């Protein structure tokens, strides 16, 4: 494999990838009629059921008989026994999308949920459009498309019934998987109609009426996840569970300092070990998003691969490897902070505002690098056969991975087949497909299906980390206690010296240029070779800690009630944006912001008298389409041990699809943020990640998990996803609560750096 990309290229590739993830194309137009046409190949079997109904029989389903069921479009198939099979086009990574996608289609289809099955769709962007899961965009991207898929299929069923009865379609009604004709009392099940419906012309998706929120029968209620039965009985759902006849196993050993190349390795010794089938060096492409140089060990079992890995001795050429060390980063950032560069943004007159201010507050904030550590370690199974690279992968972006693998192997895209499995967590890590590329590169040299299995230690050593960062802030309030100016000097990290690493730049939302009437914002960069990338609510998960905490410092300085201060802040005039008008469903909306904040204040008992050592903190973020306010009530003891009594989460993400799933995301997102804010940190020495496993990375356990009370304000905006929005406000609410309880301001994450434990 030629070295097609220099190392620095990965950063440009990654930022392009994230931009693609976070940009939602204008609604509807993404698919048009095409996706709703009857797909001959799809209905004809073979392809349609060759994917992972069950990962272990991934290839065993080719004998599917298409006559058994009727495909109305790429999302809907109805069997004569009335079973409705809906196809979820995106990956299930724990965000509940398979259930939510099924519900959205079923609602417009007027399907009986009890007879609905949801299957994973094959990776085919030509049919399905975007098939990734990132930026909490699955729901907003899929909203129109999936509703139209259900509504067009419903129209075809109604039309088929009307024809059969020789009555106008307008006299027919569909409900609960049946079409009925009121005046004659006739009724036919979807199963009975499906064959005729499949022969109906496909209506124009943009002209089929969609329901209003008041008409919903399914959406907004509570549903258990469609795969929960399989989850609790241990069925093979995940990438790691893929099993095929003759399958071999692999581990891939890379330089612990990213960028190192293999000089020599004891391959002959390794090849003699029990169960080892082969061991070889891959030069890789030099791009961390694809394949870095390393040693592949091929074995007959996972354990033999892990044992061989332990015995493998590699001499690395580290001449171009990372020498990064973060121990001095804080001191360096402080040095840099003394000299503010030319601002990237300059709104109003900051200096004049500081001069005329009633109070000026200066503070510096920082946050550590952290890792994803989704619980299913990275893996992919690849099989090079018949001129095709076939891959099973728990990716968040298998569609993008397909293209990457095709490019890397110089194969046409139709010679790469990717099956997406359930993923044991994502959190942004699986937007990158390096493990998929590694599996494909290894499979080229192995005459059998091969499952690449990373160890947990590999997941620590080779992550795309959430970057650390340093903020040097100055803010002013006037005599009336209004925020008048903010100066924010961000010292971040950079691969290429020109822009912050992915996840290390400015927030995607209206911070900081819209933060006050007068704003100065500047960025300085420190070099970093360690790969960084998106981590659950990228940029916002750290910047909202800084913004939400600093706003509280300002309201305290002004002697204001923080909720009143924030409500006033919401109403500030927003700086005009250049370019196209922002998507109204995803951009900051003062009414929605005030709504969630007021409710969070009310539900958390804002203003109530608390005993000494107890504090209540509140914060707000508009992030990834969600308006979320969170309140944290906690106690702090003399040893700085924190007991969180309750987290209150109030969010406005538009209409709720599945109330149970939404509450689960709100609880999980806020507790994940608590876990990370309190105790998680990645250290780097000589390019080597110092944390190797969970013993050094104390993810929060049940013993520290607080109750989380969840409320939603359901508005008529297009719904947002909820994988991310509940993360960003938590850290600031936590810090504000600790301030309320102790009088000490925490300006660093994790909080354990200043002695707080949970």
């Amino acid at each position, binding site marked *: 494999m030629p070295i097609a990309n220099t190392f620095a290229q990965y950063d440009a590739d990654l930022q392009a990838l994230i931009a693609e993830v976070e940009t939602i194309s204008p609604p509807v137009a993404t698919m048009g009629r095409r996706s709703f046409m009857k797909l001959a190949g799809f209905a004809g079997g073979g392809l349609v059921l060759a994917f992972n109904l069950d990962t272990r029989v991934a290839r065993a389903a080719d004998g599917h008989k298409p006559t058994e069921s009727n495909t109305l479009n790429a999302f809907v198939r109805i069997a004569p026994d009335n079973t409705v099979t809906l196809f979820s086009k995106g990956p299930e990574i724990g965000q509940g999308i398979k259930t939510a996608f099924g519900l959205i289609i079923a609602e417009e289809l007027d399907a009986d949920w009890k007879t609905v099955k949801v299957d994973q769709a094959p990776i085919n962007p030509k049919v399905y459009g975007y098939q990734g899961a990132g930026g909490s965009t699955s729901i907003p991207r899929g909203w129109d498309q999936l509703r139209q898929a259900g509504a067009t299929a419903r129209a075809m069923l109604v039309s088929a019934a009307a024809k059969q009865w020789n009555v106008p379609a307008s006299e027919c009604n569909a409900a609960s998987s049946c079409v009925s004709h009121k005046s004659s009392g006739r009724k036919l099940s979807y199963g009975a109609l499906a064959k005729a419906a499949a022969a109906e012309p496909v209506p124009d998706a943009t002209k089929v009426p969609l329901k209003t929120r008041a008409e919903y029968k399914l959406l907004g209620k509570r549903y*258990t996840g469609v795969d*929960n039965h399989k989850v609790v009985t241990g069925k093979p759902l995940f990438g790691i569970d893929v099993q095929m006849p003759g399958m071999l196993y692999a581990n891939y050993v890379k330089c612990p300092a990213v960028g190192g190349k293999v000089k020599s390795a004891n391959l002959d010794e390794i090849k003699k070990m029990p169960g080892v089938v082969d061991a070889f060096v891959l030069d890789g492409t030099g791009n961390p998003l694809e394949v870095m140089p390393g040693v592949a060990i091929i074995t007959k079992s996972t354990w033999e691969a892990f044992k061989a890995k332990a015995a493998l001795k590699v001499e690395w050429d580290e001449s171009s490897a990372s020498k990064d060390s973060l121990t001095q980063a804080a001191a360096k950032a402080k040095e840099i902070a003394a000299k503010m560069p030319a601002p990237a943004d300059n709104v109003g007159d900051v200096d004049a505002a500081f001069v005329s201010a009633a109070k000026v507050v200066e503070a510096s904030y920082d946050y550590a690098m952290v890792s994803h550590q989704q619980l299913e370690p990275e893996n992919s199974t690849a099989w090079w056969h018949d001129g095709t690279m076939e891959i099973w992968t728990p990716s968040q972006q298998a569609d993008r991975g397909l293209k990457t693998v095709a490019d890397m192997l110089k194969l046409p895209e139709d010679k790469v087949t990717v099956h997406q499995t359930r993923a044991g967590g994502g959190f942004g890590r699986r937007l990158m497909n390096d493990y998929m590329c590694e599996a494909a590169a290894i499979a080229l040299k192995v005459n059998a299906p091969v499952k690449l299995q990373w160890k947990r230690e590999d997941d620590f050593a080779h992550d795309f980390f959430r970057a650390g960062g340093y903020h040097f802030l100055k803010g002013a309030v006037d005599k009336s206690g209004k925020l008048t100016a903010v100066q924010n000097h961000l010292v971040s990290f950079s691969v290429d010296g020109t822009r912050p690493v992915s996840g290390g730049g400015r927030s995607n939302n209206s911070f900081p240029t819209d933060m006050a009437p007068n704003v100065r914002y500047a960025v300085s960069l420190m070099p970093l070779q360690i790969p960084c990338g998106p981590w659950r609510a990228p940029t916002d998960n750290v910047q909202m800690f800084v913004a939400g905490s600093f706003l509280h410092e300002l309201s305290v300085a002004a002697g204001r009630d923080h909720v009143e201060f924030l409500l006033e802040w919401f109403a500030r005039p927003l700086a005009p944006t250049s370019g196209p008008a922002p998507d109204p469903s995803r951009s900051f909306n003062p009414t929605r912001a005030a709504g969630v904040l007021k409710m969070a204040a009310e539900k958390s008992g804002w203003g109530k008298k608390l005993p000494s050592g107890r504090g209540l903190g509140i914060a707000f973020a508009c992030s990834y389409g969600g308006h979320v306010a969170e309140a944290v009530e906690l106690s702090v003891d003399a040893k700085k041990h924190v007991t969180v009594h309750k987290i209150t989460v109030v969010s406005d993400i538009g209409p709720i699809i599945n109330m149970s799933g939404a509450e689960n995301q709100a609880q999980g997102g806020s507790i994940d943020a608590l876990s990370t804010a309190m105790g998680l940190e990645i250290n780097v020495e000589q390019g080597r990640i110092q944390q190797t496993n*969970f013993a050094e990375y104390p993810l929060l356990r*049940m013993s520290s998990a607080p109750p*989380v009370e969840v409320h939603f304000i359901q508005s008529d905006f297009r719904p947002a996803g909820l994988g991310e929005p509940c993360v960003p406000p938590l850290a600031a609410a936590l810090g504000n609560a600790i301030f309320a309880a102790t009088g000490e301001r925490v300006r660093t994450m994790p909080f354990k750096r200043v002695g707080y434990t949970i």
Partner: protein
Amino acid sequence: MPFQLNINRKPQTVDAADDTPLLWVLRDTLDLKGTKYGCGIGMCGACTVLMDGRAIRSCLTPVSQATGSITTIEGLGESDKLHALQQAWIDLDVAQCGYCQGGQILSAASLLAQHPKPSDDQIVAGMSGNLCRCATYNRIKAAIHQAAGSQAETKGDNNAHR
């Protein structure tokens, strides 16, 4: 070398190196994929199985020491009938990604064997060896209470109990 195991009430003979963790014998040799690999050092609990009714970490148990009666998540229920914990997990929609949940359920089964009506504190003590990266802890707690028929003590978490 060959080992005689008793897995989910069935005798099994497997051929493996004696230091092979039970985890990989279950997954790779016996094709029981419900037992998950998470960390390999006994810190996450995804690999939890029952040996003679007590939770053990299969990633740290060499096959040579798996001499008791082993129950994996596939064998927790009786034939087609779900165990009360599995049913509670479905009823309360506990799982997010679901990767840890087999191990959680087996740890809960071990807990209930000791404390049939556990208090919140007993649940926390029994379950804190199992990580849930998605942080579904409140629902896990509620599901254990439901399966045990014990009264949930947790206040302020009404959402998880509906």
